Structures are given as structure tokens and as C-alpha cells.
């Protein structure tokens, strides 16, 4: 029984990394209807920003954390302006956006390889490795902090979307961006805000990923899993992205913990595909044709 609860904790810990990444995908998808694969590259750079803020600038943890997130917010906006805005203005098909996104992702990865180098780096130890013990269960200090900060960020994001005027505009744009523009909403600004929010979360995710594991140019690859979690939860739905991520994290942990890690991806994804066959729009996805 102890093992069961320990594995649930492990699953939540992995799931919360996926969740931070998945929300960024879902946000952009809800407005733009395409998967922003450059998000992985932004997360990777967030990890580097955090690393250099701590090691080169010797900033305290919270300052480094904020600096990295502001850095990725700007980066995500820059990516939007360079890679997507010209396509939007020409009303290009969505396939072109996906290709442009992949291009941006490869570009970011290779810029890092060329400038910073391909070797991985390690964050200085900000939090002690000794766990907090509750009976026989062990909870990592970093995991706990990550869980709290993720929850705060995601709640703030949902409140922003539900309660503010700009949030209403985002909701409206997610419903129908063309109609929004006709109603006098500055959709260009909405898109900018959405990318900025996604970028901020990418910074949070990147710093946590770097602290939890290590920093290397291919971090972006791990976001494939979080993208799948976002699809599973229902692309375009923020609570769905979080739920999908947590389920994927726990599913993976249980397969690896109780069966074998060789079957982890196989079984986890067979279950995901099964769910999508029954509910093509994901667990909490909106059931509209154009959002499939």
C-alpha cells in the first residue's frame, strides 16, 4: 500500500511537469487552432535562462525564476511575430503554421547547440535532496514547491481568463476569432497576450524541468509527451490539459512501477488512443467540428 501511494506521488510529480508544458499548447491551440511546436524550444530556453541567471548572474532563486519567465515571455512573442504573423496576415492554411512551428523549434534547438554547446548542464542545488517524510512516504522538496507554484500559476491563469476583460476577449477569440475581429476586438493583441502567457508558463516549466533533471538542447523533445497529454485532456481546454497531464503521469508511473518500463510508453499510449477513439475531442475538449 505504501508503494501505491508513493507511486501516486511520483505520478503527480511527473504529471505536474507535463501540465505546465501542456497548458501552453492548449492556450495557443484554443485561439489559433494549430499546435505550436515551437513551445518546446521556448521551454528549453527557459531552462537555460534560469540556469544562467543562477550561475552567471548569481541571482536568488525567485529572481532567477522571474527573469527566466520574462525572458521566455518575450521569446514566445518574438517567435509569434517572426514565424506566425506573416502567415496570419496572408491567411495561410493551418498546415503552414505547423511547418513554420517545427522550423522555429529546430532553429531554437540548433541556435543553442551552436552557441551554448551540446553538453548538458546542471542547476546548482537550490533545495536539499533530502525528502519530506510522511511515514514511509517521501515527497521531494522541489516536487512540493513545483506542485504549489504550478497550481498558483494555473489558477491565476484561469482567473485571468474568467474574470478580466482581456480574458473575455480571449474566450471570445477561442470561440470564433473572425467574428471577434468583426466585433471590434483587437485580435492581434489577443494573440500577442496568449503567446505571452504561454511563454511565461514555458519559462516556469523550463526552470522546473532544469532543476528537477538537467539542462540540454533536446529538452524540447519531452514536450511531445505533454502535447499528447494536452490532446488527451482536450486541446483548447486548460483544465483538460492539466487533467490529461496528471492522468498521463500517473499512468506512466504505474506501468513502469508495476509492470515494466519497457511497456510504459506502449501501454500508456494504447490507453490514450483508446480514449480518443471513444471521445475524439479528449476528456474535456469542446465538441465543435472545427476544433477537432
Amino acid at each position, binding site marked *: 500500500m505504501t508503494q501505491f501511494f508513493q*507511486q501516486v506521488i511520483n505520478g503527480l510529480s511527473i504529471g505536474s511537469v507535463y501540465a505546465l508544458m501542456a497548458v501552453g499548447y492548449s492556450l495557443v491551440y484554443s485561439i489559433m487552432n494549430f499546435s505550436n511546436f515551437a513551445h518546446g524550444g521556448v521551454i528549453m530556453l527557459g531552462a537555460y535562462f534560469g540556469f544562467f541567471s543562477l550561475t552567471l548572474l548569481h541571482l536568488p532563486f525567485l529572481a532567477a525564476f522571474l527573469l527566466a519567465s520574462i525572458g521566455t515571455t518575450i521569446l514566445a512573442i518574438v517567435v509569434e511575430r517572426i514565424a506566425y504573423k506573416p502567415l496570419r496576415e496572408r491567411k495561410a492554411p493551418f498546415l503552414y503554421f505547423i511547418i513554420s512551428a517545427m522550423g522555429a523549434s529546430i532553429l531554437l534547438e540548433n541556435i543553442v547547440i551552436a552557441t551554448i554547446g551540446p553538453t*548538458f548542464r*546542471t542547476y546548482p542545488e537550490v533545495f536539499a535532496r533530502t525528502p519530506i517524510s510522511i511515514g514511509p512516504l517521501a515527497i521531494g522538496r522541489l516536487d512540493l514547491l513545483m506542485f504549489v507554484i504550478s497550481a498558483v500559476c494555473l489558477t491565476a491563469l484561469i482567473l485571468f481568463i474568467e474574470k478580466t476583460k482581456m480574458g473575455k476577449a480571449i474566450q471570445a477569440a477561442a470561440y470564433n476569432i473572425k467574428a471577434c475581429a468583426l466585433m471590434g476586438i483587437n485580435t492581434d493583441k489577443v494573440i500577442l497576450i496568449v503567446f505571452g502567457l504561454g511563454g511565461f508558463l514555458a519559462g516556469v516549466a523550463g526552470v522546473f524541468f532544469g532543476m528537477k533533471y538537467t539542462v540540454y538542447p533536446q529538452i524540447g523533445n519531452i514536450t511531445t509527451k505533454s502535447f499528447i497529454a494536452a490532446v488527451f485532456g482536450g486541446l483548447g481546454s486548460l483544465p483538460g490539459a492539466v487533467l490529461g497531464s496528471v492522468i498521463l503521469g500517473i499512468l506512466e508511473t504505474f506501468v513502469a512501477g508495476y509492470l515494466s518500463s519497457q511497456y510504459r510508453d506502449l501501454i500508456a499510449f494504447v490507453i490514450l488512443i483508446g480514449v480518443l477513439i471513444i471521445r475524439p475531442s479528449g476528456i474535456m475538449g469542446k465538441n465543435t467540428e472545427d476544433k477537432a
Partner: protein
Amino acid sequence: MKRALFVLVLVLSIALVGCAGSAKSDTIKVGWFGALTGDQAVWGENEFNTVKMLFEEYNNAGGIEVGGKKYKLEAIGYDNKGDAQEAVNVVKRLTGQDKVVAILGPNASGNAIPIAPVLEQAKVPDIATVATNPKVTVLDGKVKPYNFRVCFIDPYQGAVAAGYAYDRLNDSKAAILYDVSDDYSQGLREFFKANFEKKGGTIVADESFNGGDVDFRPQLSKIKAANPDIIFMPYFFKEVALSANQARELGIKTTLMGGDGWPSDQLISMGGKSVEGSYFVNHLDYADPAVQDYKARYKAKYGKETELNGYLVHDAVLLLVAGLQKAGKVNGEALAKALEGIQVQGITGMINISPETHNPEGKDAAIIKIVDGQYVFQEKYAAK
């Protein structure tokens, strides 16, 4: 006219050199090859320098006695640029043109594997230095007649680790975490498991991960529940550091153990306190008293420190000389026969060439412990 004269001189000089070679029959020609340019040049240069130094020392002492006759040793070295195709070419040149009696090197398994057919045709044995892949000497269960080596093979480390854990650390319950997508890791795990169980220990958890994974908590939680005395982690330093950190985060205080994929500056910087007190298996330790004499001689002659390769090529030379003396004649075929079953005390350990595998069976490995962020040599240890 000038050109004709030049050709004539050239032909004459070649003939003269040829005559000189045959007249000077008291010299044994030994080939060496490896990378003298490119990424691995540091190791190649180190090996060839060591060979030249040792040959010079033998010659200054009057040469070596083979079959009641004194011979001088001559080293002929070629650069294969670390390239497998070039390895075949230089071996053809050494055997066909230079008529060497044996070849030393190379250090890389990828260069040592393809030369077998050339060696077999020319009947010239080769002694590889740090080529640890099992396929260097044995292919499809059959031993290659002219390939030998002085280093232990990858899977052997697993057996050494198991023996050391059970006999020296008195651990009877071991857990294994290994990379299922890597041959090296699988080999080490297999031999660790077999040897540990043979000695009477139990493997309480045998968990795997896939290459590229960064989270090992599910597997480690399972290992924690099994409550082992030691956790064997036969993979490379990046995953070692990550899994060690995660193990500590889960409250696992068990001693960790690994193979020669561990030593790296990165391991200490990434793993920090998590790998403190861990053990791993290596080919040798630079602080081992047995290697100090060679180390000092090399530094005195070349003005720089020797690398890992130098120690192993040193023992390859010892093996060659012992082989020639045992054969009693200067002949590649006789030398290859003599090397089978030969026993030589090298500076990297006792080298006991098995006729079945042409590997130094039961060779001593160095056991290293991580103490205060330093690699500290414990003892030499062989799997029995």
C-alpha cells in the same frame, strides 16, 4: 635522363634497404597502429610513445632473448586516423610490406574488429589495448585465431561488481537498474545478476529504463520497497547522476555501484552528495602503486602524463615479449599459439589469456570509491 637516374637510384636504394633488412636478422619488427591525428590522437600518440620507450629500454639492456638468440625490437607505427577502413589498409601494409611479426593496438573496438581477416591471411597476431567490445576477439561464438587483447571486456565488469558487493561489502540483497536500450548496460547487468546469484545473493529488484529517460522514480520506488543492500547502476554518468539524485529524493540511502561508464567530472558536479560513498569498477587506478614506475618513466621521457591507453599498451608489450620467448622463434603463427594460455603479470593486473576467448580472463579490475567528491582507489579485485 635525370628521371631515369632518379629511378635507378631509388630501385638500388630499395634493394639495399631490403638487403640490409635481411642481413640484420637479429631485429624483430613489431607493428603498431592507432590514431595519430583526429579526435583520438592523444591516445594514439600516448600508445606509440609508450611502445617506443619500452622497446628502447629493452634494446639498451641488450635486447630480448628468443630461442637462445638475442634480438633487438623495432617498432613500426602507422596512423589510421581512427578510421575502420584505414585500419584494414595499415594492417595490410604492416603485414604485406613491413613483414611485422605482431601488431599492437588499436585502442578502439570499431578499428580492431574489421582487421581480423587480414591478420588471419597473413598469420600475424594482434594485441588490442582498450578495445572492450566482446566482438574484438570472439565472433558468433568462435574465437578469432589472431586477435588478442589485454583489457577486460564490458560484461566482465558486471561480474567484478557482483563479486565485490557480495564478498567485500557483504551485501546479500542487490537491486539492479539498467538501460534496456544499451548493449553495454545489458551486458553488465546480465553478468552482475549471474555472478551475484551464483555466490548466494538474491536480486530483489531488476528494473530497466529506456535510453533518453530522465525520470526513474517509478522504478526506484519499486527498488526502495524491495529494501536492497546495494543498487547496481551499469550505465553512463548522466543517467547515473539523475537516478542517484532521484533515489536520494525518495529517501533511499542504499550504497550505489557501477562500471567504467561512471568516472567523469560531470558525475561529481551533477551527482554531488547523492553519489558520495558509491563504488565503481575501472580498468586501473592512477594511484595504484603498481603503475607508478611506468608513469614516472613516461613523464621523465616525454614531459607529460600518460593516459589510460599507455598502461594497457605497456602490458601488451609485456605480453608480446613473453609470447615470443614462450614460442622460442620469431614467427607470427608460433606467437599466436604461444599467446594462448600464457600468463603475464602486467601493471594493470594479472593477464591470463584464455585459449577459448583470447581475453585476459579473471583480470584484476580497480575498485574505486567516491569519497568527498574524489575518486579513491580501494583495491584490485578479480571475479572468480
